């Protein structure tokens, strides 16, 4: 397992801050990106987990998901979205997401999803 960061990709600064604060206690390094392009342009070690929004400007979350999976094939990607259609969840999982968390989320839920992804 790499010692890379947990990467938070969301265009909403409030959500990024929340996730950052929620994960701060877990002791993992964290990085943030406002959109998929910015996420993919980050250098350094591969992220250990990516938390990815679906509805974002410039590049959609689904597109970012595919490119992230190409670039970091072993990194689990957890989709976090307010869009909770069952079929969308299915399509995101088929596209390679390791999990799908609907907003609003709870700190414990986020922490346990990340821990599960790290342990997988």
């Amino acid at each position, binding site marked *: 397992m790499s010692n890379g960061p947990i990467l938070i990709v969301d265009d909403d*600064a409030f959500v990024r801050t*929340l996730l950052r*604060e929620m994960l701060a*206690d877990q002791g993992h390094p964290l990085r943030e990106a406002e959109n998929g392009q910015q996420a993919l342009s980050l250098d350094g070690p591969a992220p250990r987990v990516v938390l990815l929004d679906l*509805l974002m400007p410039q590049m959609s979350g689904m597109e970012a998901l595919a490119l992230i999976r190409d670039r970091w094939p072993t990194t689990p990607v957890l989709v976090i979205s307010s869009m909770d259609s069952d079929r969308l969840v299915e399509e995101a999982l088929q596209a390679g997401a390791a999990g799908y968390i609907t907003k609003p989320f709870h700190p414990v*839920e986020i922490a346990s999803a990340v821990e599960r992804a790290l342990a997988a």
Partner: protein
Amino acid sequence: MPEYWIGDAEGRVLGPVSLDVVQDLVNSGRLTEITQVSRDGRNWGAPPSFPEVMALLLNAPSPEALLQSERLEAGRVREQLQAMQGRPPHEIFRLDRNASVDAYRNAFFKLVKRFYPDRVRSQAHPDLRKAYADAFQFLSRLMVHIERELAEGGVVSPLPVVRAVPPHPVDDEPLTPIRTSPPQPARPLTVVPRSLTPPPRPGPPSTPAHEGHYSYKPYEFVGFERQGDRVEVTIRVTARNSRMFTEHPLANLKTDGFFLACAKALPLGTLVDVIFRFEDEHREVRSRGRVILENTGGDPSRPTGFGVRFITLVDQDRRFMQQYVDRAAAR
């Protein structure tokens, strides 16, 4: 499978997704402002250029049909709630009888999410909003009950039936803004202002809420401001009123919430953005929450006011608040 990219009025993009997903989101009212569509993610056009997408938009349920289906959904939720009441908690959460508190918490978050009032569109049928709020409140109370019983080392029993607070008409009275410091920058979670020098608070005295337990006068420290579908609640926290975090058995800091005893009770399910101003500590904590309890006076044995469960409260702030109330209690 045909794939679509959908753009909204804020320039955000969803896609590629199937037309089925677009249909789901349109029909559920979650996708209402489609401004552009693409089949390849590069070439975009207005929705009328895509007849199949236009058909979805044109065939989207009428407001009346949507309300009707929401009314039916409300009936289903009420039936589900009725089926849950009185059942052993481990059965409700589909857990082993001796499940740990962590297992209960995980199961609770999964189940309660379905009833988050956020999932209901703002113009939804009032029955549906109420049904979701009731289910949300039941599960939240159940989780508090489970945590207590497990902490005491006991076996988790069904939640005792609690007398419901009588319904009351929706209160459309204008809310009172409170601005004791300059507007804060956009959405910092924790702000440490350099100075907080609130002006004296004029205003009529409110009904003292449940004197003996809550000795403060709410108008001294709390302000409300309606912000679209939510209410911004600004609370000046002092040692005197810090009982809001500890006093109520169901809405307190240990259960991820607080109870604001005041003359105004916000309806169940109301989304609130809370700003706690700990002025003697020069610290401000922001959180978002949901009204899970209300008492407009129907239950005289309880203080008038409302209880909020935090949707978002970062651990760092939670620790700070806990330390604050501990210090206040020790004084």
